[in-house]
């Protein structure tokens, strides 16, 4: 059931799990717990629909390089940021887990179920185009968790969602969380439970833990690197170019490539490990604009220095046999000591300090991006698959100015690891040195690879739900 405020009469009922946040992470966990016959309460800071006042509580300061503002890169309402997401889905690669405590096989069992929550096919093929370059397949989900699951949640007697209820901090006794202190319509209410799951998104998870540590010195170890090792995927224009559709398909006879959507490439595992690089993905969206303005512009440019080729390409474009457009890239980032979340002096309406994000682009990311793009450009010429141009920012390894949008995949800040010196949560997503506080979402990711995070976030939600079921048994 969904309520606009906290109903005290429901708090006394036996709900062994309290979830903070109703985004993909929180709702997926609640849905799976429901299947396992376990009741949960979700406290959600936002309301059912977009609300300007509520969204303004999502502001925060960014210091350093340019990123999308914190109030524009997430959504504070039922369903969380899935209300504005793009729906691109692909699971992590096995090599993404190199630094992790767990391996891909540990979350693979939850992939099928995660796909069904997102209503996508479990089909993520990889086609090796050369030793260095792969073509990869994404699935695209249309699910916005708020609107899509609202009816189900409203009817559910196992899930209670309290809207307009902002968790401010946790209280504890001897490492056991006893209460979540929630601000509901300007009243502070203590909500008890056995297990607390923080699923408030890639910035708020750190912010809430940082504030809880200040409010309650014995709750969280002062060594825990909360807010540190923050990462995201710079989403950039790496270059532009053309790829011959028919040549690509004929040569590699991979029929799955033959669709109208974006065409995606990534450097191979071999190429990354041999060159010691971070990973990235590249994609060209054909027909980005209906009038092919951009495609025509690119071909006109080629015609300036290769007129015959330009003419040929013009014909290919007319026959719709060309992927032609900007090359957008998601880049993997590594930990940088400059990149972390801390608390500001300014506070929100509930008296919680606003987040402050320190962020600088990393040199290793830009270097990796350049090498990957050059290898792709070389591959295109050698195999006569297409022609690629790199932007000068990338060639000169400058700070990337040509941002395609983004800073949308907030990750790290409460990463998974062995102990409190290098991580915040353990392999079961439990905060070190606590008994019953868990964190869900990309803030726990030890590394972020190149893939969009939400499918993996949901796999982890299902894994945690299984773990809690086992604990309760």
């Amino acid at each position, binding site marked *: 059931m969904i309520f606009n405020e906290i109903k005290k009469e429901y708090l006394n009922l036996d709900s062994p799990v309290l979830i903070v946040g109703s985004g993909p992470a929180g709702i997926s966990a609640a849905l799976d717990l429901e299947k396992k016959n376990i009741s949960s309460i979700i406290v959600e800071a936002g309301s059912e629909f977009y609300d300007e006042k509520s969204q303004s509580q999502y502001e925060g300061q960014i210091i350093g390089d340019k990123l999308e503002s914190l109030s524009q890169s997430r959504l504070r309402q039922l369903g969380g940021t899935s209300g504005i997401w793009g729906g691109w889905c692909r699971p992590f690669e096995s090599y993404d887990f190199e630094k992790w405590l767990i391996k891909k096989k540990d979350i693979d069992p939850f992939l099928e179920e995660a796909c069904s929550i997102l209503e996508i096919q479990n089909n993520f093929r990889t086609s090796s185009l050369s030793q260095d370059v792969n073509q990869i397949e994404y699935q695209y989900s249309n699910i916005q968790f708020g609107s899509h699951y609202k009816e189900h949640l409203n009817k559910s007697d196992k899930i209670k969602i309290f809207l307009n209820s902002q968790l401010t901090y946790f209280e504890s006794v001897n490492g056991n969380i006893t209460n979540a202190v929630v601000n509901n319509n300007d009243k502070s209410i203590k909500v008890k439970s056995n297990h607390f799951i923080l699923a408030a998104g890639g910035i708020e998870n750190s912010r809430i833990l940082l504030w809880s540590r200040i409010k309650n010195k014995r709750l969280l170890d002062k060594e825990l690197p909360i807010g540190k090792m923050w990462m995201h995927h710079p989403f950039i224009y790496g*270059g*532009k170019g053309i790829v011959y559709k028919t040549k690509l398909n004929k040569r590699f006879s991979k029929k799955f490539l033959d669709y109208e959507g974006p065409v995606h490439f990534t450097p191979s595992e071999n190429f990354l490990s041999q060159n010691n690089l971070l990973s990235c993905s590249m994609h060209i969206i054909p027909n980005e604009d209906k009038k092919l303005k951009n495609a025509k512009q690119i071909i006109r*440019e*080629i015609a*300036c*220095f*290769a*007129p*015959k*080729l330009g003419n040929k390409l013009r014909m290919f474009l007319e026959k719709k046999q060309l992927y032609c457009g900007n090359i957008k890239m998601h880049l993997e980032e590594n930990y940088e000591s400059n990149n972390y979340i801390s608390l500001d002096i300014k506070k929100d309406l509930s008296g919680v300090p606003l987040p402050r994000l320190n962020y600088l682009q990393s040199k290793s990311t830009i270097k990796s991006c350049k090498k990957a793009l*050059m290898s792709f*450009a*070389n591959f*295109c*010429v*050698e195999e*006569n698959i297409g*022609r*690629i*141009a*790199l*932007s*000068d920012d990338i*060639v000169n390894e400058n700070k990337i100015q040509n941002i395609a949008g983004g800073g949308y995949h907030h990750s790290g800040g409460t990463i998974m690891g062995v102990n409190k010196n290098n991580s915040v949560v353990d392999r079961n997503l439990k905060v070190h040195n606590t008994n019953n506080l868990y964190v869900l979402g990309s803030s726990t990711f030890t590394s972020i690879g190149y893939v969009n995070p939400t499918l993996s976030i949901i796999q982890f939600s299902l894994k945690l739900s299984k773990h809690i079921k086992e604990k309760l048994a």
Partner: protein
Amino acid sequence: MSFFQFKKHRRNFLKFLGIFLFFPSKAFPKFNTKLINKRIVKKNKFTWFLDFNDK
């Protein structure tokens, strides 16, 4: 050819002869065919990777 030029050529020739006799593969380094057929064009803040036959 001046005396010094002659000496320099002779030195280079002897160096080549030595490498050729002892490390024949190093005397003729493999041509990087991957690089040789590429044409780089810089235009409007972009660097194009083209084939030599792209006319």
